[in-house]
């Protein structure tokens, strides 16, 4: 039988011995499970899932992004809630969403079942885009100098709050936005 040592003692002599039957079985299962999870992430979910993580991004100066957002609001504005402009961009279009301490702008009105390309960035510090549809939420990191680009397809009508879930300063808990999905 193998000579074994306490984990607190210096092992003496040759302590290397081949794996026993128990260890071989467990080791094989651990490797198989690791490979299974790897396959799930790299091959299986990308092929079958409706919720994909294919964030694209590029760099942009915060002021430039702010100007693009202004232009976007000007083009598609349909109203105002609580002083925040509401926009209704056509299906398939680009949607600009700007975070700043402590607000999201604009409020966005979408059509159910249509796909929109969201471009999200920050004017000042880091923020967290968190679109809440309890019991779930969809979350992306938002950085100044970078645009986070994702395509979203709302499949259910309703009002969805956007909260900020990256600490961005003492007014972090005041920061709200909204997406309205209509039929």
């Amino acid at each position, binding site marked *: 039988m193998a000579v074994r040592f306490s984990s607190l003692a210096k092992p003496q002599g040759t302590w290397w011995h081949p794996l026993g039957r128990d260890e071989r079985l467990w080791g094989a299962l*651990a490797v198989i499970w690791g490979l299974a999870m790897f396959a799930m992430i790299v091959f299986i979910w990308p092929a079958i899932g409706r919720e994909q993580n294919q964030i694209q991004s590029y760099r942009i100066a915060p002021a430039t992004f702010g100007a693009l957002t202004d232009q976007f609001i000007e083009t598609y504005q349909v109203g105002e809630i609580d002083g925040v402009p509401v926009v209704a961009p056509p299906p398939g279009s680009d949607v600009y969403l700007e975070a700043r301490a402590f607000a999201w702008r604009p409020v966005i009105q979408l059509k159910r079942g249509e796909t929109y390309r969201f471009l999200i960035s920050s004017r000042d510090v880091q923020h967290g885009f968190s679109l809440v549809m309890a019991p779930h939420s969809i979350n992306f990191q938002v950085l100044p100098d970078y645009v986070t680009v994702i395509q979203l397809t709302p499949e259910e009508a309703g009002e969805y709050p956007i909260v900020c879930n990256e600490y961005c300063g003492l007014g972090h808990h005041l920061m709200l936005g909204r997406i309205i999905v209509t039929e």
Partner: protein
Amino acid sequence: MQAVAALQRRCQVTGLLVDRSAERLIMANAVTAVVYLAIGGLLALLIALTRWQAIHLLPYESFYAFVSTHGMVMLIFWIIFFEVAGLIFGSTVLLSARMVVPTLGWIAYGMMLIGSVVATYLMVTGQAIVMFTSYPPLKAPPLYYAAVLVFAVGAILAVVHFIINLVGARLRGDVGSLPLFTFALLGAAIIALWSLLAGAAALLPVFLWTVGLVPSVDPGVYRLLYWGLGHGAQQINLAAMVAVWYGLASLTTGAKVVNEGFSRIAIVLYVLFINMGAMHHLQVDPGIGTWVRNVNVSYFMYGAVIGSLIHAFSIPASVELAMREKGFRQGLFTWLRRAPWGEPGFAALVTSLFLFGVMGGVSGVIIGGPFVNMISHNTLLVPAHFHMTVVAGTTAAFMGISYYLVPLIFQRQLVLRSWARLQPYVYALGMTIFGLGMGLAGHWGVPRRHWDITFSTARALRTDIFEQPEIAVFLAGLGIGAIIAVIGGAMFVAVIVGTVLLGRRTATPALGKIAPEAFLPVPIAAGGSDGEVSAAEPSHEGFEVPGALVLALAFLALFALLYAISWYELSSVPWGIH
């Protein structure tokens, strides 16, 4: 009695040679660690009672200041001071070796102390409310970054000192192969060097930016470098905790490592694969390509997961083997039933291993994937996950081993032993309720680091999305669990502080039912005779540790089930994302 001036003493309990200067350094680091734990625990209670929305204790400014301080003081200061004490112990006392350059140890300690005191002061007084992550361009005063950098350099020196001690012991012939405990710490030390350097590389430019020497810092690059530290640091904690797990198993049951090679390979897997896993904090960040992200968080990270799965089997297996050798051979689980459940070290081992594995590890792998991360990033599920790893796991394990190392190093009798026996269970119970409540609230979308999810003071676009009865129940769980866990933490602090200040001085502190010969490289004698002892050799189809194998298989099945549920949950998100 040996003269105070003697450079070394022979421990009368373990037979180890204790270097006096190492002993003093261990004391200083350990005491500092416990002080930070106590501060962090008090803040924990306050912020938890604020997150429990029904109570909502603190005003917003103190809440954010205290969350910042709590994260820093706990995750960085309590853990790293304790780990440095462990590194000194593992590289000197445990090897019966001398400490090579005590001065270096004191310089490291001094820098860590100054850096940590200044950073804590700035945070708790509300001058640096940037959370421990301090993501730019959020800005704290330059002194804050300077303090953190001084701390980090001190910690790097402590790690270098550990490696110097090992090399010195090796050159003097004090040690051939390292004990597994020290080997795991060596793994932790290698990861530590790499991570602390990444951390310094992240923070130095920010410091320069705050004093006006560079015009700006790139927030994306900062995050990448920062999580080289932040993620690596968790792997340091993991490796150190695994060292403590093996140590507690040997100490409380006389366990010998089932297969040294197997366990050491698992440590090497940590060292090799973990830095790639750093990217799993950036899965919903801009600036990173899909392929890089997927491969880093999956293939490479699972190399480290396999390492953890190996320990998840090896540690129970070592205990089973030791108990069977003592005669508890009947059936699958007699060895487990007859294990020393009343021994604080064993209780800490079991609760820590269980909560870390089942709640911390599994949740980490699940939310660490790039797809499921989209529904968990920055929700309360994230702190729920890491409180199950670094609190219910690492902190509980460190508490468990303190019940032995503190009496041995301070040469004092442990006080309040009955509290110590109960403490691991109280802490684990509190953490379980806390973790479930916090995790479920997070799954319902409740954000982390957030003062008011009713948005009562928001000026525009208010919502009541979080005002659902389920969420109120989950947050009550968070609060009630926190109260219980803080009581458990306070019991630990009381026992340790009481022992250090009031414990009877003795060269042979009684340590409970442990196997002191665990420190010596001789085969541990089999003992114990009991009604359930049978002389028959185990048959169990040739498996040496059938009980541990069954436990491990049950764990894997639960893991697979929760993993499957997480994909189901993702698939039920009513929006398409691509």
